[in-house]
């Protein structure tokens, strides 16, 4: 009986209407200018930062740049822009890394380094808190 009660609770919770606080986005997704990327659907951005999607539509590799897990800016980006929990992103990466079925994103130590790498690397995508105006980087709007 216990078991069915527990399963019933889980199903109810799962199907319950979603009520998620839409926190104000604090970050912008940035990409290397070669991609000419201006818009991205939210779920596609989630697939990219989860490392499930690893090719751009033209077949070239996606290079994902992130700050460390415990970096406050990283946590804010994941929660306010991707609207996910940082530990869920990490769980996806771990599954790919430690089962040999995918690779980890490239970790950088600071936002300055992130901006530099994304501007220099074709196919690169990352995020920043700053409003950037640069010829090497495009700011990507989520839709």
């Amino acid at each position: 009986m216990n078991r069915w009660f527990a399963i019933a609770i889980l199903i109810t919770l799962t199907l319950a209407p979603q009520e998620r606080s839409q926190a104000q986005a604090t970050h912008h997704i940035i990409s290397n200018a070669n991609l000419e990327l201006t818009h991205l659907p939210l779920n596609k951005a989630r697939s990219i930062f989860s490392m499930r999607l690893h090719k751009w539509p033209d077949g070239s590799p996606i290079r994902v740049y992130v700050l460390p897990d415990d970096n406050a800016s990283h946590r804010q980006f994941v929660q306010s822009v991707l609207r996910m929990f940082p530990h869920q992103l990490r769980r996806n990466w771990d599954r790919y890394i430690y089962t040999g079925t995918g690779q980890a994103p490239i970790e950088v130590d600071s936002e300055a380094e992130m901006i530099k790498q994304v501007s220099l690397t074709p196919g690169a995508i990352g995020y920043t808190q700053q409003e950037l105006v640069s010829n090497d980087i495009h700011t990507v709007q989520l839709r």
Partner: protein
Amino acid sequence: MISTQSSCAKFSGSNIILCRKTRRHRALLGLLLSSLTCLAQAQAAPFDSSKMQFHGFVNQGYIKTDENKFFGDSEKGSWEFTDIGIGASSKLTNSLQVSAQALYRRAGKTSPDGIQLDYLLADWSAINNADTGLGLRAGRIKNPFGFHNETRDIAASRPSILLPESIYVDALRELFHTADGVGLYAYKSWNNTLLTFDTAFGKPSINRATQDVLLTVPAPGTLVDEKLNASRLMLEEHSGRWRIAYSHAEADADYQPATVDLAVPGNANIKLDVLSLEYNWNNWQISGEHLRRKITYQGIFGDGFNLSFKSDAYYIQTSYRVNQQWQWLLRYDRLYVNTEDKAGESFTTPSDAYAKDWTTGLRFQPNSQWLISAELHQINGTAWLPSIENSIANNINSDWLLFTAQVSWRF
């Protein structure tokens, strides 16, 4: 379910494992090389060494029980609870990745000594769009099963130090963890949901300890013609708020008696079905999995012998993230080995028929590299107690406590 380990069986067992391993590695390498050549020809692209990645982890645990032995002489306190893994992956082309990981594992007598090849595979991602994906894997691959099977050695991926033993039985780890064969994976995204399908077919790794658990008694012969398939269908919200999965796995092997053997030729078959659910709400997570397992023996224990029984297990757990570093867990995990004999009246040791485990634990994760955790299990029943570490002569107690702590580091 209780057995004593004879040193003779152990000795011959390790020889057999060695011969088998060499053969297996050769077959694996052949498979891998041929698939690589084929795929490389299909999409020739320049090799990019910047796509090489390395990873590794070290887990060291301590286990103390008040009664019974789990991973070494835990009644006195055991440190025989170590995992060390090191691996690399490389993108040969935009669609083709090769990866390998070596694993050293020490878990009392339940795991084979020495370094094992944990996985070695080629992964070809044929379709990789935002909405649809399809790919193939070949080599030694991890089996898709439940929420935790593939990542069970990664401390940070587990909710607790010991996974729910009723479903992720450590004594049967080798049998269900990997297969030498091929796998297929696919995903499809609709609106906010993602459907993924993973399947693997191949030959499982069966060592002497696993064989003893599978056959319930140490037998001098060997299991041959082992086959395994595992599949999982998972539906999840893109945000990761909830996920539901259904997994099915089946392992099958024939028993070949030794020259001097009381056992006769026969077959052992084990089928598992698991329903998995998880829900995340703010800092809370609630999850549960329900397992049905059917084991069938034909022959082995006598000509015309035929036995089939069903096991039933589930766990439900909740965890709370106090902050980004601290996490608390509470779990109830229950197993009946034979649903028609829950009290174990037909078992040599009745408590081997069931296990009810209340677990509470704390985790401290200062950053993504370090994890320190501790947990306490209050257990009634000995169904998943490794028989290889607990002979009948050792008084087996049906009510026992298990404390474990672990430090993990990874890169």
